[in-house]
C-alpha cells in the first residue's frame, strides 16, 4: 500500500508524468497490436498464394477437402449479407437515434436507451438460435422460399445486432450538438423536421458516420449468427436475387473449418488468406469513413476561418 500512498503524496508533476505515460502506452499499444496481428496474418496467409495458383483462388468453387479453394463465393457471401444488414441497420439505427435525442420526452429516452443497449449485449448465439428456430421457418412460409436459411435471414439478424451500435453512437453524436444550433434554426422559422434534417444531423455528421462504420464493422465480423442461419452453401452471388438463397460468409468458413485443418497445410494457409481479405475489407471501410470525416472537417475549418 505504501507505494500507492507515495504515489498520492508525490508531487503533482510526477503524477501527471506517470498518468500521461500510462495513457501513451495504452494508445500506442493499440497500433502495435494491430501491426503485429497484420504481420502474423501475412506470414500465415501469403504462402497460400504460392501453393494454390491464382486461377484456382478466384474460381467459384469452395470445397477444401478436395482442394477446391475458390474464395469468391465467400467474399460475395460476406458482402451481400453486410450490405443487407447495413440497409436495415442504418435507417433504423439513425431513425431511433434521432427520435431518442430530438423528439422523445426525457423519461422515454432514459428508459429506451438502456433497453436498446441491452439488446446490443445479447449473445449472438442466442440470436442465431432464434433465427434458426423462429425467423427462418417464418420467412420460408411468408416468402414461399425453398428454405428459410438464406442471406436475407442473416441480414435481418445482423441488422438487428448492428442497430444498437449505430443507435448508441449516433445518439451520442446528436446529443453533443450545441443547443444553440437548434434554437437558432427554430428562431429562423424552421420546422422541427427541418431543424433535425438540415441542422442537427449535418452538424453531427462525423459522429453519425462513425456510427454507420461501426455498424458495418459489427456486421461483417459477426460469425456465430450467420453460421447458424445462412445455410453456409458456397454459392457465388450473381445478383440481388441471391439475397434469398443460401450463402457462405468468410467468417463462418474460418470458424467452421479452422478446427479441422492440420497446421501448415494448404487449407490452413488459405483460411488465413481469407482472414487477410476480411482485415483489408474492414480497413477499407475505416479509411473511407475517416477520409470523408477529414474532408468535411477541412471544409468546416475553411468556412469558419
Amino acid at each position: 500500500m505504501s507505494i500507492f500512498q507515495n504515489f498520492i503524496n508525490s508531487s503533482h508533476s510526477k503524477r501527471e508524468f506517470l498518468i500521461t505515460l500510462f495513457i501513451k502506452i495504452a494508445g500506442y499499444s493499440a497500433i502495435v497490436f494491430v501491426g503485429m496481428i497484420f504481420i502474423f496474418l501475412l506470414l500465415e496467409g501469403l504462402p497460400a498464394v504460392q501453393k494454390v495458383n491464382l486461377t484456382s483462388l478466384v474460381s467459384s468453387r469452395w470445397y477444401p477437402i478436395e482442394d477446391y479453394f475458390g474464395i469468391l463465393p465467400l467474399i460475395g457471401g460476406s458482402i451481400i449479407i453486410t450490405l443487407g444488414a447495413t440497409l436495415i441497420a442504418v435507417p433504423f439505427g439513425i431513425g431511433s437515434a434521432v427520435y431518442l435525442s430530438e423528439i422523445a420526452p426525457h423519461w422515454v429516452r432514459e428508459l429506451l436507451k438502456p433497453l436498446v443497449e441491452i439488446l446490443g449485449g445479447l449473445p449472438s448465439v442466442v440470436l442465431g438460435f432464434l433465427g434458426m428456430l423462429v425467423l427462418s421457418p417464418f420467412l420460408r412460409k411468408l416468402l414461399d422460399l425453398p428454405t428459410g436459411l438464406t442471406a436475407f435471414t442473416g441480414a435481418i439478424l445482423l441488422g438487428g445486432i448492428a442497430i444498437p451500435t449505430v443507435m448508441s453512437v449516433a445518439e451520442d453524436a446528436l446529443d453533443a450538438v450545441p443547443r444553440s444550433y437548434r434554437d437558432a434554426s427554430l428562431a429562423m422559422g424552421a420546422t422541427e423536421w427541418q431543424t433535425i434534417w438540415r441542422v442537427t444531423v449535418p452538424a453531427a455528421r462525423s459522429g453519425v458516420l462513425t456510427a454507420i462504420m461501426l455498424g458495418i464493422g459489427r456486421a461483417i465480423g459477426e460469425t456465430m449468427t450467420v453460421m447458424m442461419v445462412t445455410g453456409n452453401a458456397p454459392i457465388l452471388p450473381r445478383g440481388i436475387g441471391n439475397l434469398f438463397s443460401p450463402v457462405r460468409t468468410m467468417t463462418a468458413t474460418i470458424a467452421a473449418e479452422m478446427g479441422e485443418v492440420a497446421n501448415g497445410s494448404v487449407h490452413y494457409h488459405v483460411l488465413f488468406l481469407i482472414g487477410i481479405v476480411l482485415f483489408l475489407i474492414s480497413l477499407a471501410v475505416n479509411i473511407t469513413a475517416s477520409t470523408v470525416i477529414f474532408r468535411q472537417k477541412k471544409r468546416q475549418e475553411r468556412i469558419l476561418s
Partner: protein
Amino acid sequence: MTVFRHIIGPMSISNKILLVLSVLIIFLPSCSLPAISSNSSSDTVSLIENKGSDTIVNLALAWAEEYQRINPAVRISVTGGGSGTGIAALINGTVDIANASRRMKEEEKESAINNGSNPVEFIIARDAIAVIVNPENPVNNLTLKQLSDIYSGKINNWQEIGGEDRPIVRLSRETNSGTHVYFLEQVVRLGDKENKTLFSPDTLLLPSSEGIGAEIRQNPNAIGYDGLGYVTEEMKVIGVAISDGGEFVLPSSETVNNGAYPVARDLYMYSNGTPTGIIKDYLDWLLTPEAQNIVTELGFVAIAE
C-alpha cells in the same frame, strides 16, 4: 459515452486519482497470480482426454460416465468438434484418444508420423446413416443412385422421384464431419474411388446435427442425413435400396449387422501409439458386453461378437 461522462463529471481531482488507483489495484495482482496457483492438481486421479466426432460424442460421454462410476480414480473428459478436429488434436498431441466416424486419411497418417505420433486404430461400434425427410413428404424409398443424383445436383425436384412438385433442399454436415466424408465417398460417389463427383454447390452445410434436425422438422422440401442415433420421432427415415429393383431397407441394428442396409460404417477411436495403462484398460472395457449395451441403448449398432 454519456453515462461515463456523468460519472466522471462531478468528481474532484483526488477522486479521479482514486479511480485510476483502483483500476491499477484490480489489474496489478493478475500479473503475479500464475505463480501462486500452480500446484493444485493431485496425482491420485488420472485424466484421459477424449475428443473428436460429433456422431460419437454422446456415446463417448455415456461410456465415460459409466466407466468413471466403476473406476472413480479415472477422469475422462469428452469433447466433440468433428472427426477431423479430433484427429488434428491427436496429431498435435493435445488428446489421448481421438474419436472418428471415418478412417484416418493417408495424409493424416503421414502428418501424424511426421509429428512423432503413431495413431493406433480401434473399431468401437457401428453406425447406420439414416436418410431423413420431413414427415409431410410422401417419398418413402430411394435407391443409392437416386440419392447420389439428388446430392450431386442432377435431381432438383421431388416430382422427379415420385414426390410433390417441390424444390429439393439438400442438407449436409460441414466438411470437417466424418459423416460428410463417408456420405461423399459411399453415397454421392457410390463407393467408386475413381468417381470425382462433388456435392452440389447449393448443398447447405450445417454446423451441427441439431441444425439439420431443426430444418428437417419444419421444411417439407428438405432432405438430410445423420447418424441413426440422432433421428427423432418428428423425422421420417427413408428406406434405401442398393440398386434399381433391389429391396428398400430401413436402418436398424439387425439390417446393419447382416449387411442389408448399405449406408453403415464403423466408428473408430485412435490412441497415440499402442495404448498402455489406463488408456488400454478403458479401450478394452469398451468392447465388453456391458459397454456395448450402452451402444444399443443410444441407437447405434453394437459390434457383433
